[in-house]
């Protein structure tokens, strides 16, 4: 039997996975094991599968994903900390036929940008918001976020979040689901292949809603890890997330087609 060479293997018919062209070739700046990279990839895969790339404008936040515009291969605007929903509103209002999305962390969306988030949702802006909730400020070195769990340690809650002193974690997704302007509100994760498949389906639904001019905003929370900020290995971080984050931030759809489902 002839020896099999690399050239024999690298053939179109043997292709099992191809990176979407809507992710650039730039190496991701995220820590190994971080959920940001997967969330980027499935978002871009959805835009490719729906054939929306030529009409999509994305808005990057301030946070670890500030450089999302380096990786997401579509037209992108980088917004000031927390202001992405207002920036997206500006774009969508002057280009109503384009597809506009924001990609934001929990500090960005649920602390400094709370007002912009709630009002964009309440106005029913026809945009998609992808909200990465890792319970911490990753970029600035692991400070407490509005989503940090009670008792959870961070560099500004070194003895654990004391809710009497520091306030309670904010469930932004449940909150925006109550607003008449949201059309689709769901909470997902990207830490296992099964979760990734579900999250991608949800993201697809969100972009289809916008493409089809469904009335209102589609809001997707992705509960994610921050192994660096949590000071854990990637596998421990995922386990900790399942055991601690998921009970507090339960998975699943909260509002579908404008109707609350739970």
């Amino acid at each position: 039997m002839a020896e099999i060479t690399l050239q024999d293997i690298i053939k179109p018919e043997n292709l099992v996975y191809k990176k979407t062209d809507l992710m650039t070739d730039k190496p991701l700046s995220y820590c190994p094991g971080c959920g940001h990279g997967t969330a980027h990839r499935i978002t871009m895969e959805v835009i490719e599968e729906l054939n929306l790339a030529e009409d999509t404008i994305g808005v990057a936040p301030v946070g670890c994903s500030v450089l999302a515009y380096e990786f997401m291969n579509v037209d992108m605007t980088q917004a000031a900390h927390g202001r992405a929903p207002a920036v997206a509103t500006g774009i969508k209002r002057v280009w109503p036929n384009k597809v506009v999305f924001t990609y934001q962390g929990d500090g960005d969306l649920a602390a400094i940008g709370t007002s912009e988030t709630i009002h964009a949702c309440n106005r029913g802006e026809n945009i998609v918001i992808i909200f990465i909730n890792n319970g911490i400020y990753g970029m600035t070195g692991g400070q407490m976020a509005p989503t940090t769990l009670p008792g959870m340690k961070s560099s500004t809650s070194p003895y654990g979040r004391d809710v009497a002193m520091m306030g309670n974690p904010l469930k932004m997704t449940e909150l925006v689901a109550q607003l008449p302007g949201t059309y689709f509100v769901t909470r997902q994760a990207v830490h296992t292949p099964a979760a990734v498949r579900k999250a991608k389906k949800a993201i697809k639904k969100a972009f289809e809603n916008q493409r089809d001019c469904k009335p209102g905003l589609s809001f997707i929370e992705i509960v994610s890890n921050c192994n660096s900020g949590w000071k854990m290995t990637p596998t421990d971080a995922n386990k900790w997330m399942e055991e601690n984050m998921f009970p507090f931030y339960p998975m699943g759809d909260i509002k579908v087609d404008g109707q609350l489902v739970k």
Partner: protein
Amino acid sequence: MGELKLMKGNEALAEAAIRAGADAYFGYPITPQSEVIEYLMAEKPHERTGMVVLQAESEIAAINMVYGAAGAGKKVMTSSSSPGISLKQEGISYIAGAELPCLYVNVVRGGPGLGTIQPSQADYFQSTKGGGHGDYRQIVLAPASVQEMSDFVKEGFDLAFKYRIPVLILSDGVIGQMMEKVELFDPIPRWTDEEAIANSPWATTGKKNGTERRIITSLDLDSHKMEEHNIKLQEKYKEITKNEVRYELIDCDDAEYIFVAYGSSARIAQKAVQLARAKGIKAGLFRLITLFPFPTVKMREMCGKGIKGFLAVEMSAGQMVEDVMLAVRGCAKVEHFGRYGGIVHTPEEVLAALEQKIIGG
């Protein structure tokens, strides 16, 4: 001749926005400029031209809507008054950093803090020295009439797109609220989507197959590249300083004493020139139209020609006077006069200040 109307400054500005072919206005109410958004809402510009008008949840949101829409290549604007303009500064710094064209308006009121709703010119430093963070400049146009409230909208958009820079119309409560005759310019059609894409090839309008994608950002973590970007910005500001200085000289040919003023103070100082001339004092008015770029060269040139002194007249504790001093560089006497905190000075007070501080001082 264009359509003649009797209008408030704020209304003339709003009407001019529709006529200038603006694509969107994002704003938040504040006295003394709420007539701008009220007029726009009443006029239904979405029916007249397709222009979008949206009342935002805050000035912060409004300026960030401007940032998004300007980055997407459209003609957009916002307006506010002093406390609201303070809130917009982060966004303006981003707009300057990302080199986006936009128009914004400050109908200045007295401060600091919530201050008063009465007119003031105390936001000069904020407007001309960079109210937000970083080494940036913006073009500042100072209207002194309802006519200019209208004309500067058109001119402001042209300058904004010529240089990809934020342009500020720095008005005040007097100019915003007073009624005067205005000749409105003929409407300019809004750009079609194709024109907007062609006019702003750098804008985020969707990456077309075979074209480079567009990124709007003010960030570069590589300090060397950031320095290069800053140098490029500074070169643009130099170019603007060379090309875009605007001013008006009134009775300056034989003048020995010059009032330097802009906006409503220039109107008052013009009356003071008449009062002075009636008393035999050879006074003139140097009215600033652009505050940035400042007419440094012209002012310097004038002071070698028999001018004995400049009186900077402004409704502030003395801000523009610093730029007059920098221009004159000691070759003539420079003093400041102005009421502030919401008080508007009278022509008689201005003349008395000239007599005391410059002629007699």
